[in-house]
């Protein structure tokens, strides 16, 4: 019996790429629908995520699920191969804690530090570096946050592994350096080198061009169109 799995996403969104990565890691076939999140969201997206009107949305056998971390947990529970969460309840709790830390504190701080106007930059960078330092500690010398294999936290940290470096190049401001955060820096390499991860990342040059355009065009603070 074939299952219907669809992902509504946006090519540049780390959040929608998280969902795609989890599905690919588990060998799940899915149909991908690209949403024009800045200009023209589809009626289907608005129907499936009326509360937030955002990507990603996972549609499984006609039922929609929104919010990337919620979707990741759903994927984990539905498709059992290549687990992305540990079995032990305490280890699982720690993974959930770090995923939440990434979304609540780390990613907003990194985003802000990347785009801050000159007068606010120092403080924003300080906060971002605190977060990176905490993550460096959480990694604790492991190959991945998930241990020997990619797990929920690694997937949730995809922004750091790929988008951050590109933003750094576009803005000329460095946040994550090998000197300051050696383990985390090494992790970014390990993560993007996994073939399944590599396949599920947006092309570097396309993303770089997008961010450069954004710098050239925008004078206001950027808004997140996707989560």
């Amino acid at each position, binding site marked *: 019996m074939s299952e219907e799995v669809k992902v509504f996403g946006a090519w540049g969104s780390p959040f929608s790429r998280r969902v795609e990565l989890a599905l690919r890691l588990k060998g799940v076939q899915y149909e991908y629908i690209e949403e024009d999140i800045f200009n023209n969201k589809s009626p289907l997206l608005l129907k499936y995520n009326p*509360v937030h009107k955002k990507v990603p949305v996972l549609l499984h056998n006609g039922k929609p699920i*929104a919010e990337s*971390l*919620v979707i990741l*947990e759903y994927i984990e529970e539905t498709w059992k191969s290549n687990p992305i969460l540990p079995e032990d309840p*305490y280890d*699982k*709790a720690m993974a959930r804690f770090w995923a*939440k830390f990434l979304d609540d504190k780390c990613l907003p701080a990194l985003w802000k530090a990347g785009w801050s106007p000159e007068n606010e930059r120092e403080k924003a960078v300080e906060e971002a570096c605190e977060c990176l330092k*905490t993550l460096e500690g959480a990694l604790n010398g492991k190959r991945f946050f998930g241990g020997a294999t990619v797990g929920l936290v690694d997937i949730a940290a995809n922004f750091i592994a790929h988008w951050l470096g590109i933003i750094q190049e576009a803005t000329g401001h460095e946040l994550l350096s090998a000197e300051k955060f050696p383990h985390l820096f090494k992790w970014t390499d390990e993560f993007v080198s996994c073939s399944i991860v590599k396949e599920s990342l947006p092309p570097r040059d396309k993303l770089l061009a997008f961010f450069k355009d954004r710098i050239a065009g925008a004078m206001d603070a950027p808004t997140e169109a996707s989560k």
Partner: protein
Amino acid sequence: MLKSEDVKVLGSWSSPFVMRARIALNIKSVNYEYLEERLWEGKSELLLKSNPVHKKIPVLIHGDKPICESLVIVQYIDEVWSSGPSILPSDSHERATARFWAAYLDEKWFPTMKTIGLAQGEDARKAVIPQLEEGLVLLEEAFGKCSKGKPFFGGDQIGFQDIAFGCFLGWLRVTEKMNGAKLLSEDKTPALLEWAHRFCSDAAVKDVMPETDKLAEFSKMIMAKMRAAATPKS
């Protein structure tokens, strides 16, 4: 011989997030030691050691392991004490729905409610009320779908979504009282109005739900302190 497991909760009586952990433990009939943090007097050594990243309550300490973040704690409790009544729904789509609404409450609805306390002036406060009402109408709809005619989001018993939302009822009532507003109402949210009564009367909830008047007094005190802190000192 295994010592009976040591369970502690670090919290504050006024925190809705702490309530979540306590309700979950009560549902599972787990005995625990509750340690009240006097946050305005400085955070305890134990709190700073157990939650170095956020330095916030609640913290669940199980044996020697600290677990932080209220929803992470609730899920942990559900998984560890698996012989007790289930807190998360068994169907994975329903679980996703419960988690979705919990995230909505934490990331959108409750932060909006908090802005009322800090809003300057009556007009600013009144502007926030319709946003909260809109959110409650969404939750009313969600209740209809999730409960399927039963008393709680979780069905016959209190579940994850009930806990995630119900913990805010104390502060919701304070907000209503202090702004002369009716956030839960018979015309817009009749089902939630009834659900709120049931939730607050539930055995797992009633001893940990703070009294509205006490919370209102506390709220006034915090706001006074916050305004004093915000006033520039010459």
